[in-house]
């Protein structure tokens, strides 16, 4: 029983004329010290975003010292030759600035955001951190202890626990990618200030670094400002570093990380795929969106909007690391959580969605809506300086041209239904997926075994 409304109805309005928008093109240059600089003026964006990429990848960490890149990244904001750790934090906050840093497979990244009026002061602090970090014994020791304290919190988080297990399953033990990015209790405990200093000396220099500056730069003499700040950072010339090839074992199988009593099961189903240099990438973006990009994509249409098994399941491709020669790898995955009693039925439906996709393909209507969304949201997505800076930095980190994103939008618009289907099907083949389930093994093991999606093993949570 529904009831009638009394308002005046009008037909659905038609779109007006689209106003042109293009992904911003940065200007590229190099400082005398070899630092590459990308800049981009975005009118109205009063909070400027600065991203600095350092050529210090995780595979450069010495054996047994996993986590040293992370500790170094954190130690950049713990004091310099001019300020103690407490003073440095206070000076940054006095600028109204935030400075985040983290280490990942391609390298270490620092992200500064600051109101443009205080950009000179904040860039000076950032330059001090890169040029003359203190790496004081006591501060590094504190960061190590703090990191050790964080690990149990991460292991207790179902999504992070699943990610850790999937990396271990997919990659050979000899690959850095098989191990946690921020190290384990054993490796982190061995890190000291000497190790951090040694890693810095070997891998951090302006010649292998890039700074991306985006925001409303009206009235800012950026050349002079960069010269006075990041320009004063010195180091030896660049030494090319080989990128190790990435291989993954995607034999279909299931690993249950046992969490007795869990009310939900965390799913992470994945394999290794190509990076953004591969010609399939635009079609794969499109196909993956149709499969699991949003609430109205195929997975959620069944698992959420028909069955109510989940708050949401997403499919995605995430670049792990790229190389200048175009080789590289990404993680292709489906993730989400479903209530414990419906874990078997939810996985059954998920596999049915994949099989149906392979058997019947996408429809033209699905492809059209996906293109309209992926291309149409660009001006919204890149409204802030931080969003533009992040994408420009990703491109540099992945050895892609500065106009990659702009070109990608043209390629998406030119991709047909057949190509998108083929890309999605080869990205998620039903017999080549590694499934990690963090949940209550006593309740979910038997129903999962009955699905025939691969051998099921159970491991302890800790």
């Amino acid at each position, binding site marked *: 029983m529904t*009831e009638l409304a009394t308002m005046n109805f009008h037909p659905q309005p038609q779109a007006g004329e*689209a106003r042109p928008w293009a992904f911003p093109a940065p200007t590229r240059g190099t400082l005398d010290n070899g630092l590459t600089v990308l800049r981009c003026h975005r009118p109205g964006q009063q909070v400027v975003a600065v991203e600095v990429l350092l050529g210090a990848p995780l595979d450069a960490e010495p054996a047994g010292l996993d986590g040293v890149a992370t500790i170094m990244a954190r130690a950049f904001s713990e004091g310099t030759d001019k300020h103690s750790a407490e003073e440095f934090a206070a000076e940054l906050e006095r600028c109204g600035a935030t400075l985040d840093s983290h280490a990942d497979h391609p390298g270490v990244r620092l992200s500064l955001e600051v109101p443009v009026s205080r950009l000179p002061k904040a860039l000076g602090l950032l330059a001090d951190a890169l040029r003359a970090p203190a790496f004081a014994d006591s501060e590094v020791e504190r960061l190590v202890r703090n990191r050790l304290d964080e690990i149990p919190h991460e*292991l*207790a988080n*179902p999504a992070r626990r699943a990610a850790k297990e999937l990396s271990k399953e997919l990659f050979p033990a000899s690959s850095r990618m098989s191990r946690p990015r921020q190290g384990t209790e054993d490796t982190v405990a061995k890190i000291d200030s000497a190790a951090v200093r040694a890693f810095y000396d070997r891998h951090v220099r302006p010649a292998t670094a890039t700074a991306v500056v985006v925001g409303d730069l009206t009235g800012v003499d950026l050349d002079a400002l960069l010269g006075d700040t990041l320009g004063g950072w010195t180091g030896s010339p660049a030494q090319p570093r080989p990128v190790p090839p990435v291989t993954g074992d995607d034999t279909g199988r299931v690993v249950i990380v046992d969490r007795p009593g869990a009310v*939900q099961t965390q799913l992470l189903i994945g394999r290794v795929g190509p990076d953004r240099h591969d010609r399939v990438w635009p079609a794969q973006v499109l196909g993956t969106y149709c499969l699991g990009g949003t609430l109205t994509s195929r997975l959620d249409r069944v698992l959420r909007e028909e*069955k109510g098994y989940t708050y949401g399941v997403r499919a995605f491709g995430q670049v792990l690391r790229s190389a200048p020669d175009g080789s590289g790898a990404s993680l292709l995955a489906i993730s989400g959580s479903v209530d414990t009693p419906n874990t078997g039925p939810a996985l059954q439906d998920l596999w049915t969605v994949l099989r149906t996709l392979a058997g019947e393909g996408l429809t033209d209507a699905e492809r059209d809506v996906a293109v309209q969304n992926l291309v149409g949201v660009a001006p919204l997505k890149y409204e802030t300086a931080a969003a533009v800076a992040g994408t420009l930095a990703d491109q540099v980190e992945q050895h892609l041209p500065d106009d990659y994103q702009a070109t990608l939008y043209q390629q998406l618009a030119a991709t047909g239904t057949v190509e998108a289907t083929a890309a999605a099907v080869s990205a998620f083949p039903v017999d080549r997926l590694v499934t990690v389930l963090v949940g209550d093994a006593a309740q979910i093991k038997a129903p999962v075994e009955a699905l025939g999606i691969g051998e099921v093993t159970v491991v302890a949570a800790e």
Partner: protein
Amino acid sequence: MPMGHTATAEAGSGGLTATEHRLENGLRVVLSEDHLTPVAAVCLWYDVGSRHEVKGRTGLAHLFEHLMFQGSAQVKGNGHFELVQGAGGSLNGTTSFERTNYFETMPTHQLELALWLEADRMGSLLAALDDESMENQRDVVKNERRQRYDNVPYGTAFEKLTALVYPEGHPYHHTPIGSMADLDAATLEDARAFFRTYYAPNNAVLSVVGDIDPEQTLAWIEKYFGSIASHDGKPAPRDGSLPEVIGGQVREIVEEEVPARALMAAYRLPHDGTRACDAADLALTILGGGESSRLYNRLVRRDRTAVAAGFGLLRLAGAPSLGWLDVKTSGDVEVPVIETAIDEELARFAEEGPTAEEMERAQAQLEREWLDRLGTVAGRADELCRYAVLFGDPKLALSAVQRVLEVTAEEVQEVAKARLRPDNRAVLVYEPTAPQATDDTDGAEAAAADDTEEAAQ
């Protein structure tokens, strides 16, 4: 003067303006032009939140918000999502204690579609609402509750603190997600009655911000929303007034399978919209915001007894605001060690007040947060609605940062002295149990203050 530092001459408002209008059916409209990017944000605040819920029906406002995406007279099934996303837009809805909001950010040339969609569900939701949607979204919301609260360590901390600070029977005693039992008990008729009671044009504010032609936009709003009937059946929300301070320390010990001991506390603070609330915001920032705060320096840097330590502020207009302290202990450190240090720091702050440098830092941080919020059309649209619904004047959003910059060190000290006291706090202590418990489980990361909002996606 050590205060009043500004990053720009306009102090965050950046020369922004807004105009106000009212349709005959009572719908309030706020428009703000900005042509820098070809996008427009539509934001609709309904003056209804979890504080309007009655006993036995907690979570209904949020469950209802989900139903608003299940179609209306002219929009089939998931059409709200499909049409907006297919037009290159983004959308969502959230529910908090004091309001429910719905928003779309669109490429400029698709603005009219978003207005048509919002009007259709405001005027005709019940033409489409059925049992199938109700049963499905009940399951989705229960899974949302499991994912965000029940299946993560410390996930229910905020719910527990809220229940301690606002007494049984108080409209803010429960959080927007509601209880599993109440979610199970809600009926289709409850949802229909909720819509008929609260979803009226005269109980809403609509803001449109960005690359718009105000005259054309207003004409579209009149066309699509103008014929929706107003009605006045809304009951006044239950009284949320409480003594300014709790009057004695309240305490709960939680023994659960969590990764580390934790000390959390909540304080009653001044109502949102007052100068004292801005002073409290500055006090909490100085004490527990960022990595140069007093508690971070003391517990994480110097004593090394904590992994993380911070304060958050939940601004509330209809009840005392809530200041939330969250400390996770390091290693085997016992909670009393942490508690003593916090008491010392809060007492010293109340005694001495902030330094000029601390005021400068805290004001710079809050100013940047405002620049961030007003830096996108969607953020600006939401703030305009907030000030219109809660304080009657949307333009207050554009001068909010200036008011924060005008607060003096004396006012910050005064609010700390009056409110950040042991007899005005509810304390929650987590003591880890060994694994194997079968009633409750794990996850990580404390739920932050923004976890009071529930989203449709």
